């Protein structure tokens, strides 16, 4: 399993304070998620692309990340134009492709690509412990932060355990199929995985107690806001305002039309 991201780079983006990056990502992705106007959406995608470029990311790796997601997008393009009722744009035999459906699918595509690229550029460019610490300093509840960090640490251990169990099943001739035996076997493997995870949880806790754990984690990160962070943040605020202007001028136009 690989969740390394691009934290080893040394671009302008990499040098921006992680807390600023997390905050901007949060604001920008929520904003993008609620956009309706296409101009605003295209601008938001452009901004994300520019960030990816300035983070100097490996384009092949980025497109691989996007590829994993494209399957969902294709599904949306198949389902939405057919299922959303509205003006018929194109009729094929008994299938109606509606304008509204296509618009919605396009919106979702733009939004999701824009947000994924944004995360690639601003979040994947820091390692997990830095991300955890910046979440902590942005007052994200500690339980969520620790849950997040522990997940990062142990997901590969769980993956190994799962593979071991699967191997044990395979060497005894197990072959997955569409039958009750397969479901039962997967059920058992999942059950064992839970039991193992629980027991490991106990052992990890004991190991933590042995090292003096008393319910508090100490962060090792030293965050310092500098001038370049201000410049980056103000630039982003300007761009976000531009997106907002496009979005709301669109709505204003619509309202004027209606009136």
């Amino acid at each position, binding site marked *: 399993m690989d969740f390394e991201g691009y934290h080893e780079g040394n671009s302008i983006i990499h040098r921006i304070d992680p807390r600023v990056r997390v905050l901007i990502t949060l604001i920008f992705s929520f904003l993008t998620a609620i956009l309706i106007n296409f101009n605003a959406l295209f601008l938001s995608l452009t901004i994300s692309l520019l960030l990816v470029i300035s983070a100097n990311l490996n384009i092949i790796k980025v497109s691989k990340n996007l590829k994993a997601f494209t399957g969902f997008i294709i599904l949306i393009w198949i389902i939405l134009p057919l299922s959303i009722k509205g003006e018929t744009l194109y009729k094929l035999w008994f299938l109606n492709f509606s304008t509204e459906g296509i618009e919605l699918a396009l919106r979702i595509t733009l939004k999701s690509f824009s947000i994924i690229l944004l995360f690639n550029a601003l979040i994947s460019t820091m390692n997990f412990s830095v991300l955890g610490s910046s979440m902590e300093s942005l007052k994200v509840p500690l339980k969520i932060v620790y849950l997040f960090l522990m997940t990062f640490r142990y997901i590969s251990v769980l993956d190994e355990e799962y593979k071991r169990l699967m191997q044990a099943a395979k060497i005894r001739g197990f072959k997955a199929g569409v039958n009750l035996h397969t479901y039962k076997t997967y059920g058992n493997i999942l059950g064992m995985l839970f039991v193992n995870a629980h027991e490991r949880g106990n052992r990890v806790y*004991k*190991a933590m107690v042995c090292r*003096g754990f008393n319910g508090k984690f100490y962060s090792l990160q030293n965050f310092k806001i500098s001038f370049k962070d201000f410049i980056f943040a103000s630039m982003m605020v300007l761009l976000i305002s531009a997106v907002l202007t496009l979005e709301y001028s669109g709505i204003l136009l619509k309202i004027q039309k209606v009136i």
Partner: protein
Amino acid sequence: MKTIIDLQRIEYRYPGNEEYTLKDLDLKLTENEKIGMIASNGSGKTTLFHIIMGLTKPSSGTIEIFGKDMIDEKDFIDVRKKIGLLFQDADDQLFCPTVIEDVAFGPLNQGKTKDDALEIASDTLSFLGIESFKDRINFKLSGGEKRLVSLATVLAMKPEAILLDEPTTGLDEKTKDKLIEVLAKLDLPSIIISHDAEFVNKVTSKIYTIKEGKVLTDKDIYLHSHVHAHPHDSDHKHEHTGTVHSHGHPHGRDEI
């Protein structure tokens, strides 16, 4: 000589289990003493360590550590600062994303400042010759590397004694040699549980075993002073302490 750990008449059985895992067990560790413990799986050796650290409560018996009676959790908090336990599975011990964070975790809990903790962590890694691991991601380390980092997390707390639970499992020869070297350099009172008789013989001065829930000392188990003679190693001296040629295994139990 100062006694570090003194267990008396310890009894333990798993909940729902009729039979006692540990029964009427006595064990003493004094300063400058290095005890190796060779015992079969399921003989309760991990439980024994957990009892010393206060992670598992024995059904009965008394625990005295650094001359103090251990009664409740509060007493053990102090013990955990002074005795380091290396867990059998390194994945249990390393739970932080990166190596340096994990090694600094103990010192931070001991109330050290961030800078001090980082310095202690770096020094400990250098002591083990693995300072280059510092910023590496824990789950990407190999088995041997994980073991050395776990040892670093234990040593960073500057323990006065150490307990090692199967430290050689999954180690290649090179890492094992390194571990032997490090343990010699450390020279801390220790109890080392291992399947690896050759290793135990190299790093400890006494070999005990657990049999039927009791610790048997070397006098009880009648050992050949050199465990496992190796034909390729002709320089080894064989000191026969008895006429019976025996291995360093406890007798009459399943294979180690």
